[in-house]
């Protein structure tokens, strides 16, 4: 197996097809990042919401004691 391009510049230009090829691979990076990040961000948002609720519940319990 060998690298098919003579230089880095040639690898980038891909004999004229560079813009098409690289546009697709950049789009793929964006799409995959979106799919990876969205469940992680959602989990964090749920955790924050639960923490807020906990705090509120604790404050209410404290006030009712006074």
């Amino acid at each position: 197996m060998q690298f098919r391009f003579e230089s880095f510049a040639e690898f980038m230009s891909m004999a004229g097809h560079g813009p098409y090829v690289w546009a697709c691979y950049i789009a793929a990076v964006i799409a995959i990042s979106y799919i990876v990040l969205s469940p992680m961000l959602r989990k964090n948002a749920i955790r924050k919401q639960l923490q807020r609720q906990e705090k509120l519940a604790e404050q209410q319990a404290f006030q009712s004691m006074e």
Partner: protein
Amino acid sequence: MAWQWFHRLGSPKWFYEKTNAWMPWLLSISLLMIVSGSIWALGFAPMDAKQGNSYRIMYLHVPASIVAMAAYYVMAVAGAIGLIWKMKLSYMVMKVAAPIGAVLTAMALFTGAVWGKPTWGTYWVWDARLTSVLILLFLYLGVIALQEAFREQEVADKASAILSLVGTVNIPIIYKSVDWWFTLHQPASIKMTSSSIAPEMLYPLLGMITGFYIFFTWALLAATRSEILQREMKTNWVKHALLNKV
């Protein structure tokens, strides 16, 4: 007794705990395969004699298209199981499959259009394959929209499941479109029995397809898990799992 596993599978808590250990493995293996497959595809696979370097887009276009359709099967089957057995977990799988499938379909359409420009001389034509995949994207968007349209989750789930099942008719049309109305898009190059691609071009493609399938498995599980947390937020086990308290 024999049905016990089926009922346990329907329990969101059991599902969440069971899949916990798989998640980092599925994600790292799939990303490793996709990244190394991409490097192979971009730099080490030989140039195509007819299409030149633009064919390197195939290594994204083919896996994205295959998995975009597989995601539709998953969504429709999960919707059917939800309708028949009233299994909530199944509805959750159906719901989260839609945005993942939509992103993959958009990726298939985008890479196809960009590949079409240097190869066919145009980004888009109303070819049967291209049009039926565009309909696939609209079906996914339809399920996403239906999920948002109802206040009652149960109603939203039933409506989305019915749309998914009706839309299944589009899947064989996508498969067969290149044979029935052969206008511009080429028929499949890899089949179960034979392949018209040279081995040194084929291996990275098979690697990418496998990587995309594993990635989809991770994405589906991860999204289902966050959907479980959302819907079961009021239960103690979710509070326990997310706030790390006893």
